């Protein structure tokens, strides 16, 4: 009986020693501030003015009646747990994104803003 108890103690110690937890965070940074949007007026602001303030976009999309400039940044958070033979991981990525719509004359027609990167969180996968 004592031997069994010792075995359980040893197994428990091994379980603890070979277990680990991890928390990680990564940012895909693009310098922009939502408050800069106050400088722009649809109908008059040009693509050049947007580029001057925001810099080069993350990507551009050709649309049926103009172009869209997309500015994007992301925050990813990861949580990992290793328990001897079991391992669990959870990764969440959220984005801040601004999309400017320009007509064929490169005049700003609309813009859309989503700020969700701050909502990225650590957690378990279950």
């Amino acid at each position: 009986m004592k031997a069994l108890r010792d075995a359980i103690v040893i197994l428990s110690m091994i379980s603890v020693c070979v277990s680990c937890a991890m928390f990680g965070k990564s940012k895909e940074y693009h310098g922009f501030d939502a408050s800069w949007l106050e400088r722009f007026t649809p109908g008059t602001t040009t693509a050049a003015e947007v580029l001057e303030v925001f810099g080069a976009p993350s990507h551009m999309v050709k649309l049926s009646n103009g172009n869209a400039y997309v500015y994007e940044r992301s925050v990813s958070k990861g949580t990992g747990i290793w328990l001897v033979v079991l391992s669990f991981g959870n990764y969440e990525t959220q984005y801040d994104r601004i999309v400017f719509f320009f007509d064929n004359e490169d005049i700003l027609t609309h813009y859309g803003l989503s700020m969700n990167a701050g909502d990225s969180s650590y957690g378990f996968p279950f």
Partner: protein
Amino acid sequence: MGFRFSVSLVFIMGLVVGIILPGCISYQFVRQLRGAEVMPPDNTLHTGRTTLGEILSIYGAPDSLEELGGTDLLIYERTLHGNSGLAFGIPFSDLSFINPELSARGRLGRYDTLALFFTSDGILREIVYTKGSSYPYLKTLLEDERATDGE
């Protein structure tokens, strides 16, 4: 001065199994979530009337944009991937070419998508909403487009 633990077969077996087991058997589950929750379309959206500006003020910036045959497509999407795997193997690769392994893996993808089609004048033309779909809407749509173009 004696040993604290009595050496027995059970003790040795427990030690050996505890050391060897993590190297031979593993189960993993990884969950990946990307994007914010997608709001389903409500009765404020009307095809033929709602404008691009109204959509942007309600839903914010889309996750992706595409131009498809004179129509502009805005996609709001949240993806959830779950990967799980059970593996049993004996890592002999450093000692010999024989490296027996038995494994089973599963991958689950779930897509919540709101796809909004606009005319070139920025008027909402069509609304597509899917929740818990196994396939990404845009990828499927583009593959269908390419297949149609190829005919």
